[in-house]
């Protein structure tokens, strides 16, 4: 058997294992079993190669929704961005997701906002999935077993976010022996240990951290890189820990804990106001799952989880340091069944969660009497959901129809700072309830063995919002839930696609079109000053609606020495607020008219693999002033149409090479050489305006400046597996 054939089949195995495609289910009834997806994956890896290859033919044609399902092995083929094959980050390059911009790995899916993605790690909510302003995601690649990304036809078991689902699961199989994976690099290092305590019980732990400001940036400074790019501070660390316990053939228990922390300081902001501008955020999640295989036709899974997110910004404003803190906690229980009944695959279950949010806690060391009104509220809510869906396959048709019902209640304590009277609600009292019914529908028709069409329609509601303080640059978002004054977001999403493969599935092509509505979108009323002075955050928000539409093209080559893909999105995203832009529609900040990703991989031989990634996106929309004037001895900006400015285009080239080293004493290892932003494109990070000579002198000097963040970042890392 040739090496090429072997490698191809390994890739096919991995793709198959991560995708539950129907075509092979004729041969392997176990796919239709009701066991959990993780165990299916591992069982399928045992399948012989020829049978696996048969499954690959229909992955993109037959899948039951539009999106991507990957396992870590296939992600290893991606360019190593700063030394890591980061599957979450890679989503931005796979079509249908807009490039967020510099230092922002937010997902802007089909015109939606960054907060409209349901991101789950082992079923537990992750509020902010990024490290170091988006260079890394919070997901440790050594632990990821599989990732599912759904952008349309979102099944009924998922709810609470309008635009997409990213469902990531970590290793759930008990290893046969001690397993150590890790990486030593110039930018960051990581280590992951998985250990079988008994044949039925294993534990794992991992640690990851960066030292960018200590090593690589000083080195780049010596090479002549602009000091404004190299004197920033951005570091992170995270830890994962968990266990797998297979009680018997019927019961399994899986536990997982994650905590990560980021600390960011931007020198370009600091230079006028010393070193007081900084940002940190922290995710902490934990959960425990119980899986019960009742029989081959029925399984049950329940999970108890906790998720918290905090973000804190120190902003030097008004000659004083103002600290803005926002946070969110969620306690969640969900339980669901998977049942096979003839040609039906049923999923039904329920979810209950209790949420606490504190959107904007402000602390100031100002000597000036800033009029903070102290009308802050913490927000408490209970949410219950129930879902049912049926996946039905008849001949060339596959239909996936379901419904999800939600009830959301804001509960006390709460103070309503009404203009005429202040109303206090006691703890536990119900302040406001919202109900929603969400139909979900997806259909696929196989026109020919190489051709299929897919259609979907879905309705989704979202009860927790993250509203950005800044439209561009530093990602400081406030956590604001639905409440007495804030209605939940809602969306209708219609999508259709045509998929065709060529040359025995070596080439995949697709074109998809979509239309999406967005209701009850939020924007802050005015500027940052109001956020610092107006604690009654609900009254400081504007509500509007939006819509987006677009078309997505993708061509992918799966086999041969050269592999890769080309993805292009042509999209429009609008918003309309009565109180903005005189009520006229305007382009959303995340509008990207053109968005292009090209990924190529070249396998030179058994030792060397090369890859390259090029991304291009139309610049984001921004509200900038048209003119300046002086009044009351102050320089004032005059604004024109909202979001009329388009930022310079974002583009970047990343290169990487992998050299597989000899296995020594059972240690497999490889060297990763990578260059992030290879041609040192200074992509805009944020726009600032600076004034000097303020305060009575007549030497005004005002300028708009664009700041840049990430220069070319070369990286070498040694990845090992013991």
């Amino acid at each position, binding site marked *: 058997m040739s090496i090429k054939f072997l490698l191809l089949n390994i890739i096919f195995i991995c793709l198959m294992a991560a995708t539950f495609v129907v075509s092979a289910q004729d041969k392997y009834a176990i796919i239709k079993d009701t066991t959990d997806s993780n165990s299916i994956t591992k069982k399928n890896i045992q399948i012989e190669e020829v049978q696996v290859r048969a499954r690959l033919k229909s992955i993109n044609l037959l899948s039951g929704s539009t999106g991507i399902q990957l396992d870590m092995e296939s992600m290893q083929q991606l360019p190593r961005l700063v030394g890591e094959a980061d599957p979450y980050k890679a989503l931005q390059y796979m079509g249908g997701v807009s490039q967020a911009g510099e230092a922002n790995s937010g997902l802007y899916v089909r015109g939606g906002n960054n907060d409209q993605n349901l991101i789950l790690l082992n079923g537990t909510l992750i509020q902010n999935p990024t490290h170091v302003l988006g260079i890394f995601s919070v997901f440790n690649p050594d632990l990821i077993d599989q990732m599912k990304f759904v952008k349309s036809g979102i099944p009924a078991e998922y709810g609470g976010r309008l635009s997409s689902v990213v469902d990531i699961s970590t290793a759930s199989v008990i290893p046969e022996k001690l397993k150590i994976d890790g990486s030593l690099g110039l930018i960051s290092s990581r280590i992951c240990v998985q250990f079988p305590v008994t044949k039925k019980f294993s534990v794992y732990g991992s640690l990851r951290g960066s030292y960018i400001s200590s090593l690589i940036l000083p080195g*780049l400074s010596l*090479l*002549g*890189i*602009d000091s404004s*790019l190299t004197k920033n501070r951005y570091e992170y660390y995270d830890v994962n820990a968990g266990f797998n316990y297979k009680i018997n053939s019927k019961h399994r228990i899986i536990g997982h804990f994650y905590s990560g922390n980021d600390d960011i300081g931007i020198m370009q902001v600091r230079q*006028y*106001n010393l070193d007081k501008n900084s940002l940190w955020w922290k995710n902490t999640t934990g959960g425990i799952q119980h899986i019960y295989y009742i029989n081959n036709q029925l399984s049950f899974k329940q999970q108890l989880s906790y998720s918290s997110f905090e973000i804190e910004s120190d902003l030097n*404003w008004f000659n004083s340091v103002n600290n803005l803190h926002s946070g969110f906690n969620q306690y969640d229980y969900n339980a669901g069944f998977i049942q096979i009944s003839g040609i039906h695959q049923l999923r039904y279950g329920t979810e209950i969660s209790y949420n606490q949010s504190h959107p904007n806690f402000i602390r100031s060391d100002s*000597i*000036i009497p800033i009029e903070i009104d102290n009308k802050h509220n913490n927000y408490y809510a209970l949410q219950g959901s129930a879902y049912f869906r049926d996946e039905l396959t008849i001949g060339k048709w596959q239909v996936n129809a379901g419904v999800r019902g939600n009830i959301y209640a804001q509960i006390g304590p709460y103070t309503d700072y009404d203009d005429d009277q202040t109303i206090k609600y006691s703890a536990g009292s119900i302040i406001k309830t919202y109900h929603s019914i969400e139909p979900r529908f997806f259909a696929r028709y196989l026109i020919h063995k190489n051709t299929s069409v897919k259609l979907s329609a879905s309705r989704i509601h979202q009860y927790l919002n993250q509203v950005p303080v*800044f*439209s*561009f640059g*530093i990602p400081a978002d406030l956590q604001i839930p639905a409440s007495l004054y804030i209605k939940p977001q809602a969306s209708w999403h219609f999508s259709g696609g045509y998929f065709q493969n060529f040359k025995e599935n070596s080439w995949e092509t697709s074109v998809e079109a979509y239309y999406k509505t967005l209701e009850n979108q939020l*924007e802050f009323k*005015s*500027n*940052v*000053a109001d956020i610092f002075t107006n604690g009654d955050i609900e009254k400081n928000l504007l509500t509007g609606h939006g819509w987006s539409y677009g078309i997505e093209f993708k061509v992918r080559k799966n086999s041969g020495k050269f592999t890769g893909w080309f993805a292009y999105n042509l999209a429009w995203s609008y918003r309309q607020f009565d109180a*903005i832009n005189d009520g006229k529609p305007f382009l959303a900040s995340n509008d990207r008219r053109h968005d292009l990703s090209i990924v190529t991989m070249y396998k030179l031989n058994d030792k060397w693999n090369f890859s390259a990634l090029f991304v291009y996106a139309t610049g984001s929309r921004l*509200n*900038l002033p*048209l*003119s*300046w*004037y*002086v*009044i*009351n*001895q*102050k*320089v004032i*900006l*005059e*604004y024109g*149409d909202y979001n*009329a*400015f388009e*930022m*310079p285009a974002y583009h970047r080239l990343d290169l990487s090479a992998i050299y597989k080293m000899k296995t020594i004493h059972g240690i497999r290892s490889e060297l990763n050489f990578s260059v992030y932003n290879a*041609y*040192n494109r*200074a992509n805009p990070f944020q726009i*600032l*305006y*600076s*004034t000097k000579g303020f*305060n*009575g*002198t*007549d*030497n*005004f*000097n*005002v300028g*708009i400046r*664009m700041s840049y963040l990430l*220069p*070319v970042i070369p990286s070498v890392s040694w990845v090992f597996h013991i």
Partner: protein
Amino acid sequence: MKKLTYIIPLLILIFSNSCKPDLDYAVHGYTQKIIVEGYISNGEYAKVYLSLNVPVWQTIDSATILDHVIRTAKVTISDGKNTEILTSSWDKEHFPPYVYKTTLLKGEAGKTYNLKIEYSGYTVYSVTTIPQPTDIIQFETRESGENDSLKILSASFIADSTKKCGYRIFSRKQADGFYTETPFVFNAAFSLKGLQTIDLNPFPRSTDPSYSESGCFHIGDTVKIRFATIDSISTQFFNELSLFSSTTGIGNAYFTGEKDSLSSNISYPGFGIWSGSGIKIYQVVIK
């Protein structure tokens, strides 16, 4: 080795010359406007400052702003009975340093004043009323907590909840050349009722002798206080201005997605404020 001698300088060249894009300001609808800053107070002559707004893509410094000062406008003020064309002169106490002033007509509380500006073929109008002034009924000092010789000065007044008025307070220390405003408009939401006590907290200029005292007052100092009552439109304008300029005025600031420009009571193509204020002036010695 020879290759390295070429490669290393080439890398340094690439690294040190990153491709930096710039913003395209060309086509976003800039229109020139007459920027108006006019005041009329009871017992005082009216003052009007005029300039043009400057396109954002032009370098802004003192010289550019001076180039945009309007010095050839015809400015007329009328109270319905009396009309006066204002005369112009340099005013070094203000920036931009060119003022149009009345020489006969002084403001009276309760009266309405029409403003008409003719410049370069355009005419803009505005109207304002001087509210009745509000008395400060008491001044008090207390320890600053930082320095035994410095005090915090507060003033008390009765807010009239039946009228939509805001309040601005200015103070001038003995050694300083100018009045400095405590940088807030009080009663901006028109919600204050009855007795109110506010701390004076001027924000001295770096060139003022009292700069190091910050918002406090030195024991023994004689301080002049100017308490202005302004109408609702002026309240809205100066409140927005105080919040707006607090982000633009000091050092760097982020563009935060401003939704609106400032309010204005000047007709198109003018922009700015024509503000009547009912003033009371006091003098206190800090003890």
